C-alpha cells in the first residue's frame, strides 16, 4: 500500500517521498551546520557507483560558508542524515553534496 510517507519501489526497496527526505535533511543540516550557513536542501533520485538506487541530497550553503563550516559538522550531518533516513525505512544510499546557489546555477565547462 502506498502511504503518504513511503512508497514501495518497483524492485522492492522502501523509498521515502521527496518531501520527507528534504525535511529530514533540512532538519539535520540546520542542526549541525546552523541556519546561518544553510539556505535550502534538495533531493533527487540517483544511481551510486555500484549501480544501485541512491539519493542525491544537495545542501545549498550561503556564499563563504564552505570555509567556515567545520569538518566535524559535515561529518555529523552525514551520519545524522543516514541514521534518520534509515530509521524511517529509507534503503537508498544518500550521497550528500554541498553547493552555493551560484555554483548550482553555473553552466559550461572549464
Amino acid at each position: 500500500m502506498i502511504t503518504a510517507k513511503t512508497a514501495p519501489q518497483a524492485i522492492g526497496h522502501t523509498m521515502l517521498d521527496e518531501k520527507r527526505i528534504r525535511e529530514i535533511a533540512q532538519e539535520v543540516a540546520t542542526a549541525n551546520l546552523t541556519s546561518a550557513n544553510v539556505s535550502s536542501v534538495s533531493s533527487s533520485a540517483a544511481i551510486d557507483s555500484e549501480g544501485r538506487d541512491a539519493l542525491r541530497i544537495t545542501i545549498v550553503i550561503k556564499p563563504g560558508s564552505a570555509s567556515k563550516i567545520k569538518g566535524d559538522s559535515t561529518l555529523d550531518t552525514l551520519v545524522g542524515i543516514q541514521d534518520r533516513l534509515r530509521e524511517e525505512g529509507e534503503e537508498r544510499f544518500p550521497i550528500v553534496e554541498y553547493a552555493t546557489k551560484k555554483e548550482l546555477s553555473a553552466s559550461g565547462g572549464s
Partner: protein
Amino acid sequence: MAVLNPNHLFEQANKLIAIQVGPPRQVDIRRAILTAYYATFHATITAAADQFIGVTNRDTSRYGLVYRSVSHAWLRELCKEVQKPTLSNKFKPHAPSNGFGPNITAFAAAVVELQEKRHAADYDVMIRMNKSDATLAISTAKAALRRFAKASNARRLAYLSVLLFQPR
C-alpha cells in the same frame, strides 16, 4: 618505503582549489576530491600495516604485502557493514562486545561517502562538481581521521583486524 602522509595529501587537495582568478577548473576540483579520499584510504591502510607488521618494519616486503592487500571495494564493504545497526553474522564474532561505536561508525560513513564522490570525480562527466563540495569533502575527510584516532584501541584494533583478515 614511502608512506603517504595524509596531511600532505590534504594540503595538496587544498592547493588545487585555492583562491585564484575565477572558479577552479573541473580537473582541479575533481583531483581535490580524489585526493581527500586517498588521504583517508592511505591513512587507514597505514594504520593497519603499522598495527600488524609494525612501524619499525615499514621497509620490509611484508609491510608492502599487507599494504597492498586491501582493495577499495573491500574497504567500502566493511565500512558499510560497521554502520549497520545489527552486524551480519559473519562479522559479529569479530566485533567488539559493545559494537564498533560512534567514532568508527562516523569514520566509516565518511569513507563510503568519499569513495562515492571519488568515483564520480573520476568517471561521471555528466555532473559538474564544485569548489564548495570539494572544500567540505576535504574537511569531512580530516574529521573522519580524527574520529578514527579517537576510537578506543579495542574498537580500532577490531576494525583493522577485520579489514586485513576478511571473515569467511
